[in-house]
């Protein structure tokens, strides 16, 4: 582009020069004509001078046009040179890149060569080491060769020695062969002698064995003799004892004989007495027979009368019993009602006293008051238990089929509300029974609470409940591993207010087992227990296997 602009600029310059020239010509011509019209000669000279000047100017113009064309050419030349320079510049850039690439390659090659040099240096060192090793090995080999040569020469000498020794040995061998033959002969002689000796030995051995047998037989015979002697001595001493015994028996017999004589006399006397008695009995029998005959004479009407009288008496007695029962009932009623009221007053007013006047009591006063309260409470429990016991006497038994296992599970649940159950209770699959569910529940409640109470202080209290069918009865049992009791007091277990344990140690009124006993007996069953102190107790009760309401 640049060269083209140059070219245009050159052309413009050239055109301006041209128009300037034209304008100059026009202006110059007009005044020249006007002047020519006004002046004559002087004007002609001036005209010639002007035309010379014009020619001069035209020449200068031509020169200028030539110069312009030369400038154009020169410009073109410059443009061309510039293009060449640019080409050359781009070629130089390419060449530079090529050089840079080659330099990098050389750098890489150089570093490779360095690595190769290092490798070569290492290999050379290795070769030198190997060479020095080889030199040492060569020296070693040379030394060994020398040693071998020495050894070879020694071996040659030794061989010669051996050859000599062999010759000597052959000589000796032939001498030995002769000696051997001599020995063989001697050996044969010895063997003959040896076989003779063996036969002689066997003879001796046989004789020895015979002697030993004989000796053993003698020992046995001796022992036998000793034993027989002992037996004889024993027998002798036994005979002495027997003799003494016989003497004693004889004495006894004599005594007995004397006694028998006395006894015989006695018997004779007794016989006489018996005969007398027999006579008396016969007389008595006769009298009895007479009396029997009299009784037979009593007629049936009399018997009927007697029966009626008896029945009347039974009725009277029953009525008496009923009234006694009623009396008992009203007694227990009044026990329930009349004993309670004063008791409540005792405990109630004691509490009011405590509440209202406590600050006026010293410690001993407070203690005495608490003793009053405790005992009032205890008496309340006693009354409750006693009432339950007496109420049971009047209660009708109402039998139904009882699922014992279920009943016990309910009882345990009920108990766990009022007491802490620490024991592990194992209940077998129990036999179902026909009985009064409320009462049997009471039985289990009492037995369970006892078992729990008396095993509470054990480390791992366990209570097991089982049942079995035996001889027409179901036998239920409850076993604990608690404190147990002394079996010599077992007969007191089921009495009212009987206790086998200290009230301080185990709470209770002594009514529970009496109640259980009463319930079981009312069902026609039995109750018993077995125990060991410190090992636990088992309570058993039986209930008859019965039909419904039988």
């Amino acid at each position, binding site marked *: 582009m640049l060269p083209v602009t140059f070219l245009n600029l050159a052309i413009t310059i050239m055109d301006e020069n041209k128009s300037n020239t034209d304008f100059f010509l026009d202006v110059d011509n007009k005044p020249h004509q006007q002047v020519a019209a006004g002046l004559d000669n002087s004007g002609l000279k001036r005209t010639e001078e002007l035309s010379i000047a014009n020619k001069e100017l035209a020449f200068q113009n031509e020169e200028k046009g030539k110069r312009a064309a030369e400038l154009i050419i020169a410009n073109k030349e410059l443009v061309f040179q510039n293009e060449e320079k640019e080409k050359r510049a781009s070629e130089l850039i390419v060449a530079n890149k090529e050089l840079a690439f080659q330099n990098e390659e050389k750098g890489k090659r150089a570093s490779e060569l360095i690595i190769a040099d290092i490798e070569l240096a290492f290999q050379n060192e290795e070769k030198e080491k190997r060479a020095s090793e080889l030199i040492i090995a060569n020296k070693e080999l040379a030394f060994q060769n020398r040693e071998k040569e020495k050894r070879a020469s020694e071996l040659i000498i030794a061989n010669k020695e051996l050859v000599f020794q062999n010759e000597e040995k052959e000589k000796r061998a032939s001498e030995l062969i002769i000696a051997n033959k001599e020995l063989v002969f001697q050996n044969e002689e010895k063997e003959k002698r040896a076989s003779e000796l063996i036969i002689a030995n066997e003879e001796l051995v046989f004789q020895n064995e015979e002697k030993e047998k004989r000796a053993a037989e003698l020992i046995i015979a001796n022992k036998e003799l000793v034993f027989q002697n002992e037996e004889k001595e024993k027998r002798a001493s036994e005979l002495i004892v027997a003799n003494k015994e016989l003497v004693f028996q004889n004495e006894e017999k004599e005594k007995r004989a004397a006694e028998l004589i006395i006894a015989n006399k006695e018997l004779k006397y007794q016989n006489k007495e018996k005969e007398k008695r027999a006579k008396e009995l016969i007389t008595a029998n006769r009298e009895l027979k007479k009396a029997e005959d009299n009784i037979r004479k009593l007629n049936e009407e009399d018997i009927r009368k007697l029966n009626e009288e008896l029945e009347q008496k039974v009725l009277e007695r029953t009525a008496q019993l009923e009234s006694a029962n009623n009396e008992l009932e009203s007694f227990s009623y009044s026990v*329930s009602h009349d004993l*309670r009221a004063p008791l*409540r*007053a005792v405990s*109630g*007013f004691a*509490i009011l006293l405590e509440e209202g006047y406590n600050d006026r009591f010293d410690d001993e006063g407070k203690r005495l008051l608490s003793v009053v309260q405790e005992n009032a*409470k205890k008496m*309340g429990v006693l009354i409750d238990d006693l*009432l339950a016991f007496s109420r049971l006497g009047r209660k009708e038994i109402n039998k139904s089929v009882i699922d014992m296992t279920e009943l016990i599970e309910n009882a345990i649940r009920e108990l766990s509300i009022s007491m802490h159950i620490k024991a592990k209770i194992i209940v077998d699959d129990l036999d179902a029974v026909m009985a009064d569910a409320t009462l049997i529940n009471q039985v289990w409640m009492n037995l369970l609470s006892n078992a729990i109470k008396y095993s509470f202080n054990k480390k791992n209290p366990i209570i097991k409940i089982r049942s079995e069918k035996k001889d027409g009865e179901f036998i239920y049992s409850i076993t604990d591993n608690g404190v147990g009791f002394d079996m010599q007091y077992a007969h007191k277990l089921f009495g009212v207010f009987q206790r086998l344990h200290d009230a301080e140690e185990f709470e209770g009124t002594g009514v529970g087992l009496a109640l259980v006993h009463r319930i079981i007996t009312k069902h026609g069953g039995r109750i018993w227990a077995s125990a060991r102190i410190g090992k636990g107790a088992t309570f058993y009760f039986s209930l008859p296997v019965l039909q419904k309401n039988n």
Partner: protein
Amino acid sequence: MIMKNIEVEILLVEDSVHDAELAVRALQKNNVAKHIVHLKDGAAALDFLFGTGKYKGRNLDNKPKVILLDLKMPKVNGLEVLEKICSNELTKKIPVVVLTSSKEHPDVEKAYQLGANSYIVKPVDFESFRKVVNDLGIYWLLLNQPL
């Protein structure tokens, strides 16, 4: 003892003076009841309720809100009183709570048959007794909506 215009909240019929005192103390303790009339036997209770004898002329509109009745009493016993209260138009709407020492089964049954509203066995232990009487007062005087 003629109370004509004083409102009677509780009529306590109880032969044991000491039981009565304990009950009254229990009822007064938390201000459950202020006006308690205590009578010692069934005959007096009937006179009071029907305005006879000693209580002739008593304003009979002044009815107790509840009657606490002991069963075993001299002269007229509790069951007889109960029978009369429940069979008379004048008194049959008054709630009667039988309060007794007896757990005896026939008593309970008889009392309910005659129309007792409640049957409470007095606990032997005074603390429990006090609580029972207190609860009774709260229930019949404060919670129960009379006719």
